[in-house]
């Protein structure tokens, strides 16, 4: 097959994908089993597929299952978004923070939560708007006869810290109302259910399809601008479209779950180490891994200090940062 980086190791890919799918399914099972009441696997099966009416049916159907699935989609979207951005920028440090998605969603989210707490229903749409607006602003600022990754990164850092100072200012001025805002800024899946799932699902599906369609183009883009152009790739269009897809994926995730860190950065890295740099495999594998990682982290966040629940953002950050440092040291060798 043309463009297959490791001809003859297609079974290897298949195996990796099967393993990741299994991990994701395991994450779902783990997420539903664990909690204040332990539920065994056969019981879950009964409640979900055999129409049993027990007291636990409610817990499984309306609390644990949707929350676990929201976690899966949030993780998948963030990881896929990070993988796309790392491809577009050809920079291993690129992640959804970089294009302003987090700071934009953060600022708008905090504005709603602090200044207009009675309009909390608007939190998700406002955060989504902020995330997309910030991404668009950064892209426009970086534009000069096309967008160069370095300029995009610098514009992203500048705009993000500008919006970040807005968040800080609000938190300082209204220090009596920061409670809800803090939880949003750390990111968590607490009390997420079917409505959130319905909000995020279309973005996950459309984003995955778009990413798969663009994966061959991203492979060519990885050869560098000059080579890609020489091979007839419309690099500006590919860059713009893939950045837009990444922004929408990340915006849908953070507007539902808050500013979850590190998943978008480390998961694509991890996957790259596992299966190499062919985006046709890397992108779906990143999404699967992101889903699995997020579900496990959320379950950990629920049970570590039960009955107190940690925001999952603390767990992903606390586990993600050391792992990332480990990867950096490994790469340096």
């Amino acid at each position, binding site marked *: 097959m*043309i463009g297959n980086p490791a001809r003859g190791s297609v079974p290897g890919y298949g195996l990796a994908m099967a393993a990741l799918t299994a991990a994701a399914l395991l994450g779902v099972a783990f997420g539903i089993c664990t909690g204040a009441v332990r539920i065994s696997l056969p019981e879950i099966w009964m409640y979900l597929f055999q129409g049993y009416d027990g007291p636990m049916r409610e817990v499984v159907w309306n609390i644990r299952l949707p929350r676990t699935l929201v976690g899966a989609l949030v993780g998948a979207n963030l990881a896929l978004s990070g993988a796309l951005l790392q491809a577009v920028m050809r920079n291993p440090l690129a992640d959804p923070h970089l294009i302003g998605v987090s700071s934009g969603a953060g600022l708008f989210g905090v504005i709603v939560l602090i200044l207009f707490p009675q309009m909390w229903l608007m939190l998700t749409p406002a955060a989504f708007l902020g995330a997309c607006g910030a991404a668009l602003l950064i892209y426009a600022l970086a534009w000069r006869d096309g967008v160069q990754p370095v300029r995009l990164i610098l514009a992203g850092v500048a705009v993000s810290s500008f919006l970040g100072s807005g968040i800080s200012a609000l938190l300082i001025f209204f220090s009596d109302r920061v409670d809800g805002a803090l939880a949003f800024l750390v990111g968590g899946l607490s009390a997420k259910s079917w409505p959130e799932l319905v909000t995020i699902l279309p973005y996950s599906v459309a984003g995955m399809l778009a990413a798969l369609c663009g994966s061959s183009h991203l492979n060519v883009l990885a050869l560098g601008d000059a080579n890609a152009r*020489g*091979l*007839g*790739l419309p690099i500006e269009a590919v860059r713009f479209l893939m950045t837009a897809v990444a922004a929408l994926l990340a915006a849908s995730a953070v507007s539902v779950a808050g500013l979850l860190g590190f998943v978008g950065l480390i998961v694509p890295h991890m996957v790259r180490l596992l299966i190499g740099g062919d985006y046709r495999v890397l992108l779906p594998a990143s999404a699967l891994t992101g889903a699995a990682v997020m579900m496990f982290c959320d379950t950990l966040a629920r049970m570590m200090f039960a009955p107190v629940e940690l925001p999952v953002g603390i767990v992903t950050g606390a586990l993600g940062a050391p792992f990332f440092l480990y990867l950096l040291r490994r790469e340096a060798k």
Partner: protein
Amino acid sequence: MTLLALENVTVKYHRRTVIDGLNWQADAGKIYSIIGPNGCGKSTLLRTIAGHLKPERGTVRLDGRPIGSYSRRRLAQHLAMLQQSQERLPEITVRTLVGYGRFPHQPLWRGKRKEDEDIVEWAMAQTGVGHLADRRLSALSGGERQRVWFAMALAQKTRLLLLDEPTTYLDMSRQWEIMELIAELNRRHGITIVMVLHDINHAAACSDEIMVMRAGAVYAGGAPERVITAQTLGEVFGVDARVDRDAETGRLNCVIRGLRETADGPDRVFNLRERTG
């Protein structure tokens, strides 16, 4: 038959006029070398021909049609360009990289196409990298890598091949291997070659025609014997050269003996400043 025609081409790069009203033509099936001092606009010219830079004024025609009227993809089916240096290498195998040469020819929904696979194998065989097909790029030597990039350009199956200093960073024998590869591709497959070279002797040995550039314009053009003279080298590069013929091969042989020492030494320094400033 004229394959490539540059008509009054002016190119600006970062607001500086790098190429100024340049006219030039290339016939199909020949090898052309472009030589000239650093900063004279050789690479810029090549990138303009490849359609990577848009001329401020003038037209570059391929087969009589302005290259601006080709889509990127279509242009990539007609001409391929080998970059002077490659940035970070992707972690992929040789066969994969060469396979990307088929990108401009593949339909958007690419499946396995036997035709593409055959061309990739052919390109690797032509450039002598068939035995490296399953190796990763990072595991290759400089000379091998250069051949692999050649193979990718070849897999594009274009009639025109643009090469920007294809022998840079290679040792002497690798350099000559590349030059022979270029001549071979031209002879066997009739591929038109336009390349930027630094080594005058390489250019003289392999080219049908040489174009000498100075300060963004054509200084001289034509058969090597006509163009490569002590006087040209003196005026364009400011070197003291001796040009004679090798007794056995009959090839031109340039020996650079040093910088040109002239009575107007200070003048030359002044000229240089004027040009760069």
